[in-house]
């Protein structure tokens, strides 16, 4: 019914409540996404603790299609098929005012990790490339989807940390694929809910003054007046979908007899607020 960048709303008619609920549960918990999992911190002299910073980075949503990646399990090496590497290096010089580190400071490294692993072997140096924390066979830039859309965080203005003068953060973050069941950072939706379509039934014909009164009562303008001719006016239910069931129209003395509020049994309206909207739509279709 409605689809924006950030939320969508649609109706499902003729299904049971169990299916709508399972839909909602699957949307929240079982659709895969990419989120930062491992943070390798080289230098952190800010007042934000390492683990708090890593937690915040994990919650930052990333604009990338998770279907292009595989899951990374414990025994696998992190390579270009299952990891996305970001780098964050911010420094606040002495004498300059405080800096706010926002999520657009995360830079994508398509060639993999740049941090060098400490190896005990002195002989494996010099000739070959130094060993890093990821084993990228080829640069991720060569994958056609990434040529035009580099991988960046979805919202560039998420505050990650704040730095005072003389403080520095230097770290590398690895993002992997996961589902919401493991940790909520992998949930693709901000939230998802459903409700049943409200049905407003006028038990008697409501005319003239009572009709005007009814129309002015409802805060979302569910009712409308239609003219019957001969100067009489009748109230009709124009927008039942907007009804929030506030019961304002039943308040007062006799209104209970005239208006009944119910729910249509198998008409569900699902609403989804999404961080990474494109992914959910294409996963569903």
């Amino acid at each position, binding site marked *: 019914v409605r689809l924006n960048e950030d939320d969508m709303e649609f109706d499902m008619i003729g299904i049971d409540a*169990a*299916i709508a*609920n399972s839909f909602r549960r699957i949307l929240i*918990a079982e659709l895969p996404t990419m989120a930062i999992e491992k943070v390798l911190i080289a230098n952190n002299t800010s007042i934000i603790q390492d683990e708090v910073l890593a937690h915040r980075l994990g919650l930052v949503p990333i604009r990338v299609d998770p279907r292009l990646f595989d899951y990374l399990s414990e025994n696998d090496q992190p390579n270009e098929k299952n990891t996305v590497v970001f780098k964050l290096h911010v420094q606040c010089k002495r004498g300059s005012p405080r800096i706010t580190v926002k999520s657009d400071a995360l830079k994508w490294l398509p060639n993999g990790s740049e941090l060098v692993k400490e190896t005990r072997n002195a002989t494996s140096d010099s000739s070959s490339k130094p060993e890093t924390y990821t084993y990228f066979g080829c640069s991720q830039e060569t994958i056609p989807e990434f040529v035009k859309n580099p991988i960046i965080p979805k919202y560039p203005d998420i505050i990650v940390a704040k730095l005072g003068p003389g403080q520095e953060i230097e770290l590398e973050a690895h993002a992997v694929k996961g589902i919401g*069941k*493991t940790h909520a950072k992998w949930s693709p939706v901000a939230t998802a809910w459903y409700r049943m379509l409200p049905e407003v039934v006028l038990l008697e014909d409501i005319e003239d003054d009572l009709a005007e009164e009814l129309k002015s009562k409802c805060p979302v303008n569910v009712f409308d007046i239609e003219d019957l001719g001969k100067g009489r006016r009748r109230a009709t239910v124009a927008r039942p979908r907007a009804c929030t069931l506030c019961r304002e129209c039943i308040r007062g003395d006799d209104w209970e007899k005239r208006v009944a509020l119910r729910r249509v049994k198998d008409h569900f309206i699902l609403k989804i607020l999404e961080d990474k909207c494109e992914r959910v739509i294409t996963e569903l279709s």
Partner: protein
Amino acid sequence: MNAPDRYERFVVPEGTKKVSYERDTKIINAATFTIEREDHTIGNILRMQLHRDENVLFAGYKLPHPLQYKILVRVSLFFVG
């Protein structure tokens, strides 16, 4: 501290079957299915669909404990067809 790892919610360990089945001794035509590593998402839908079948007399599911990730589905039929 006692909580199991989060990936246990959907990873079936080696050796255990995903679905196992036991007939009910006291009631004829009844059985209990144990499905490992599932939760309400599947259980409720299964139960709803079983109710729509005409041969089914009794269908229900439960999670014995929220920290043990399995569901028990109990079904009993009118007669063995």
